């Protein structure tokens, strides 16, 4: 029975993960290395890569602040509406990214709620950089908070209380006590958040307008190339994103390892074995 299950699992992984991975790289290099290099250094591709990095550079820090703040107030304080806030944090996961994109168009688009006001003040959100950043930030907002809430719940408030009694202020308590205790969980959340920010397609596709060299991100660029039957080029750009995913995976594994080690410390700190004579 055990072997059957293992075989099924491995076969599933091979067909859904490993094979596509191999395919991406074999297709990318199908016309030789020079075509590959050209595809990823072509101005439109470079501009898409730059835009993708820029979006991640904004969305990830914003979500770090939001995630830590949300997790902090949910786990360290009691207030009315706490459960509602926890549910709201999950909303971007529950809603299809395309719908999220549509919502932003409905709010900030030319015919949207704030459309005319934005037009009057000459602010462009939809089909421009601010829209892409907004949509990406929204989609990736749960990652950090989701990662930190259970961790901080488990750690409790004892250490923070101890710090305050010893005379520490709020910021001192956060930077000297809370942050060191959550750093691995935070990093893990940030890695996932970053991966999604760079890879997000649905919501970004709706708000971006696919303007080459301006509002095209890497995932959108892959799609455009593919639709133009430039398969080798399309897969070449896709392989860059795939490499990014592999790096993310490696980092994630490393962080998980550190996290387990500090969780081990936590368990040790909570139990009080009399291993040594007191």
């Amino acid at each position, binding site marked *: 029975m055990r072997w059957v299950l293992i075989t099924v699992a491995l076969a599933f992984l091979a067909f859904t993960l490993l094979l596509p991975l191999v395919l991406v790289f074999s297709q990318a290099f199908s016309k030789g290395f020079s075509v590959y290099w050209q595809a990823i250094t072509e101005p439109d591709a470079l501009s898409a890569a730059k835009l993708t990095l820029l979006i991640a550079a904004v969305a990830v820090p914003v979500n770090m602040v939001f995630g830590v703040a949300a997790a902090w107030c949910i786990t360290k304080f009691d207030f009315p509406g706490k459960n509602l806030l926890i549910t709201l944090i999950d909303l971007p996961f529950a809603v299809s990214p395309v719908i999220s994109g549509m919502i932003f168009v409905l709010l900030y688009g030319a015919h949207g709620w704030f459309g005319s006001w934005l037009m009057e003040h000459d602010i462009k959100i939809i089909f421009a950089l601010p829209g892409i950043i907004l949509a990406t930030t929204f989609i990736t907002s749960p990652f950090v908070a989701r990662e930190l809430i259970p961790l901080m719940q488990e750690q409790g408030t*004892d*250490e923070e209380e101890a710090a305050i009694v*010893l005379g520490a202020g709020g910021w001192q308590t956060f930077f000297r006590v809370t942050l060191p205790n959550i750093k691995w969980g935070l990093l893990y959340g940030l890695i996932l958040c970053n991966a999604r920010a760079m890879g997000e397609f649905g919501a970004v596709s709706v708000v971006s307008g696919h303007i080459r060299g301006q509002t095209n991100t890497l995932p959108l660029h892959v799609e455009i190339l593919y639709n133009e039957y430039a398969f080798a080029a399309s897969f070449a750009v896709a392989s860059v994103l795939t490499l990014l995913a592999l790096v993310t995976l490696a980092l994630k594994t490393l962080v998980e390892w550190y996290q387990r080690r500090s969780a081990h410390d936590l368990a040790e700190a909570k139990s*009080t074995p*009399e291993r040594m004579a*007191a």
Partner: protein
Amino acid sequence: MSIEVRNLRKTFGDFVALDNVSLDVPGGELVALLGPSGSGKTTLLRIIAGLEPADQGTILFHGENATDRPVRERQVGFVFQHYALFRHMSVFENVAFGLRVRPRKVRPSEGEIRETVMGLLGLVQLDVLADRRPSELSGGQRQRVALARALAVKPKVLLLDEPFGALDAKVRKELRRWLRRLHEEVHVTSVFVTHDQEEALEVSDRVVIMNEGKVEQSGTPEEVYDRPATPFVYGFLGDVNLFHGRIHQGHVNIGESELEAPEWAHVSDQAGVAYVRTYDVELAPFASGPSSLEAVVRHIRAFGPMVRLELDLVDGGRTIEAHIPRARFESLALGRGERVFVSPTSVRVFAQPT
């Protein structure tokens, strides 16, 4: 520094954690808050520390109103039940924390910090473990690090929440003696919470017994043990036998027998309970007066200096416990199933609320 608590009230939803609690802790004393779980003792301690706001009432530190003073300005040392050591810091850094977070103007120099911390670690006999992480220490060692950390900021008041609760019996006893000695050395006003009566009676200068959010009695260990003010205190401190009967003009009638209760001379026919400590009974082979109760020996535990007997009262069938000196037990030559007469030598009668 003295602590005065006046008419404190605290509720959590419908649960009344503290109900009009008043308390005096004279400066320099070591006071135990003793009570079963849910009696409000930890809540009281947390309110004194400022970790929890009170619904009503005032707290005075050294005669000054400190009710709304923020935690960090109260100058209290708090030792948490599970120690709450900073797990990512070394023992040294844990103890140094309170000094390092001070505003730059009043922060001691690195040398002074080192001197203070090592001095304290010496006091708690942990100087050799200064570089260890809390996870590498035993429970007793963690407890002492927590104490050293609390003392590092030179608190005016030291508060300890179940300081020995998570430790095993042997370590507990050692630390108890050690805390007593430490208190004699540092002499800071200290309040500790415990549910262990032996711990409270042995360590403290004064015991405050709490039950269901109220203070039942407060006094020296001798006072509360020898003269319990309420039935609860009687039952909570030490082993006690209960005899249910009727109070009538200075006597309590329990079945055929009659116990003296002179303080109830003016009461006629009221339900009452006589409390008798397990060692306040005399056993004899014959009835020695109206206060003798006939019983059958059910069980004998004959190790140690005191022999413990379980006795079934013939009248009413209740089981009581009697502790008598070994010599007396041997002269009586009692065996299981034999008949014996029980005479209480010290009785305290409380009327039963109707």
